[in-house]
């Protein structure tokens, strides 16, 4: 097993929500509330969850774009959670992000060359005269024509704009990339192109990915392992195929069953999960999922479950997962 490139230990990212007049915070939005996981070099880890579960915040926390309240964050073994802007700057080229809305991610008043050069400028080893050449290489890498370097973002389609964003993310020769709903705003066929490009680049350049999405169907096409997030916590993390074929957490099963399958012969009926997605301001006590879980017991209401390992790199947070597994209520 390769070593962990990103190591998260008990990460908490809370945003202040209510303050007294003197500035003391009285209420928090607990977007990430105790996440521990490792992302191994060369893998693509999927992070799936519904809106408001904190997955985007988790991605941003790793890149220090969101305020980390407590916990340890390690990149390649080095602790980075305490570093200030200056100390962290040398890590920035190594970890980059591709955002959800490609149109909003590109400054409409800058040409593609300027956008790429801005990214290249933070690498001290790249000389200014090399920018044009390097930008051309990047355009080739994402299957765009170099002539487009002098165009403005609005002259491109959504798919092409996302390729430009990917090129920008690759400009600094990163080791780690976060894709935050990077294909959600794209059409089906364009999404397919981008996913294939991403998989290809990962193989060619030996990158490590964190792929955040609410779309389960796409996970297996690019991710090796997938983590399921709910109300600020990770509920389950398993190898991609195993997670969807045989989930061990009731929420994962509910999520999987809710996805409309593009096959009219498979109409098992979309299982309905009762209740609403919890607010991160006052998440349920005990196991976060207990108010909606069909198998919840009193124990679930009182105590939050610990991590139960299933396999190296695979674990689940549920008091009853062994029983549910034995009874076969979850699998299949």
């Amino acid at each position, binding site marked *: 097993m390769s070593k962990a490139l990103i190591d998260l230990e008990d990460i908490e990212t809370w945003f202040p929500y209510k303050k007294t007049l003197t500035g003391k915070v009285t209420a928090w939005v607990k977007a990430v509330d105790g996440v521990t996981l490792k992302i191994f070099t060369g893998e693509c880890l999927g992070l799936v969850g*519904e809106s408001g579960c904190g997955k985007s915040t988790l991605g941003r926390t790793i890149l220090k774009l969101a305020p980390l309240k407590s916990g340890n964050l390690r990149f390649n073994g080095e602790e980075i959670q305490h570093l200030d802007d200056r100390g962290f700057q040398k890590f920035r080229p190594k970890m980059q992000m591709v955002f959800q809305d490609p149109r909003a991610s590109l400054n409409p008043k800058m040409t593609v060359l300027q956008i790429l050069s801005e990214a290249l400028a933070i690498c001290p080893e790249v000389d200014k005269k090399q920018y044009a050449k390097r930008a051309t290489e990047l355009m080739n890498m994402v299957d765009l024509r170099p002539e487009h370097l002098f165009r403005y973002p609005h002259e491109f389609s*959504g798919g092409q704009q996302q390729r430009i964003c990917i090129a920008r993310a690759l400009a600094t020769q990163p080791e780690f990339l976060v894709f935050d709903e990077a294909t959600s705003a794209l*059409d089906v066929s364009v999404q*397919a192109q981008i996913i294939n490009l991403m998989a290809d680049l990962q193989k060619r350049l030996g990158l490590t990915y964190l792929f955040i999405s*609410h779309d389960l169907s796409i996970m297996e096409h690019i991710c090796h392992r997938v983590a399921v997030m709910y109300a600020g916590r990770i509920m389950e993390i398993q190898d991609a195929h195993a997670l969807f074929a045989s989930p061990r957490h009731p929420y994962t099963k509910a999520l999987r069953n*809710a996805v*409309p399958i593009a096959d009219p*012969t498979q109409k098992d009926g979309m299982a309905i999960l009762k209740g609403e997605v919890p607010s991160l301001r006052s998440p349920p006590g005990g196991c976060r999922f207990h108010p909606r879980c069909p198998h919840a017991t009193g124990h679930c209401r009182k105590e939050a479950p610990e991590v139960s390992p299933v396999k190296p790199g695979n674990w689940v947070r549920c008091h009853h997962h062994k029983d549910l597994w034995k009874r076969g209520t979850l699998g299949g």
Partner: protein
Amino acid sequence: MDMPSKTQQTPILGVEDLTVSFEGSRGVIKILEGIDFTLYSGEVLALVGETGCGKSVTAKSLLDLIPQFSRHRSGRVAFGGKDLLNLSSRELGRVRGRSIAMIFQNPQSSINPVFTLGEQMYRLIRMYLQNEIDVLCKQKKMNKKAAVHEIAQEKLAEVGLTEANRLLKSYAHEISGGMAQRYKIALALLSSPKILIADEATSALDVTVQAHVLKLLKEMSQKKGTAILFITHDLGIAAQICERVAVMYSGRIVEIGKTIDIFEEPLHPYTQGLLAAVPRLGNSDPLRFVSGMIPDLANPPQGCRFHPRCDHRMAVCSNQRPHYNAKDRDRSVACHLYTSKAAG
């Protein structure tokens, strides 16, 4: 899934040769060109396609919700013995909301933020359900206000909203997306419309909430016999709740038929490409996609609009526009590969 035989189904909406174009800064933009389909009572028909295919414009054109400035429209939309495109705005106003209702993508933004949900619902109940109000007043000796409130509770319960009292006092921004969309469905069904148009109605909802709403729509359709025209880019939704599918590309319907036929044996090369690109749960094969890009509507390709991207293109494809191969609009494909064969 059982579908009533064709003879039992009555057509309630007939769209013939609907063409919509705009005069833009770069010339005439032909958004829709010759849209042809029939909607039968009680069925759920999906209108699927990617960005720029014109599916949303089609739906909005039926109720004349497209801004009129520099717009040209032709064709015929037969509904209830009249042509919707030829109605005066007053007559059309009577159709909208009453016989043909519509729900949109962002439910919270289509609820008036200034009034409570209750105020908006009561108004509609008084508009459409006078009979029921009178009946309740007589039978249960209620005053009008109480009767209206009771009807509201009943309708909300039908869509699965149980905390009616609290909900009716809330404002749009205080409720979740799922609740808002169910509320909008309740409103839409108040007048027992013959047709409900759902324009990407679940795209902004979480997947678990979406499952609720889709199931609800299906149930409502079966119980009340409302036909649903479901516009979506999600082929999964089409497969799960729609009986028939119409695939659109660049302003035209390229294929239409029963869902099961379209998915098992897609005829049009675009449909085939689309289905191959859809990511599937449980599948990790690399996704296949159609090369090229969606055409510029101001300068679309001649003949068949898909031909520059088509692996099977022939000479005729760049000259002539293909029409449906069968008179039966219910399983047809608009592609030259099939028109050379004997028409059905």
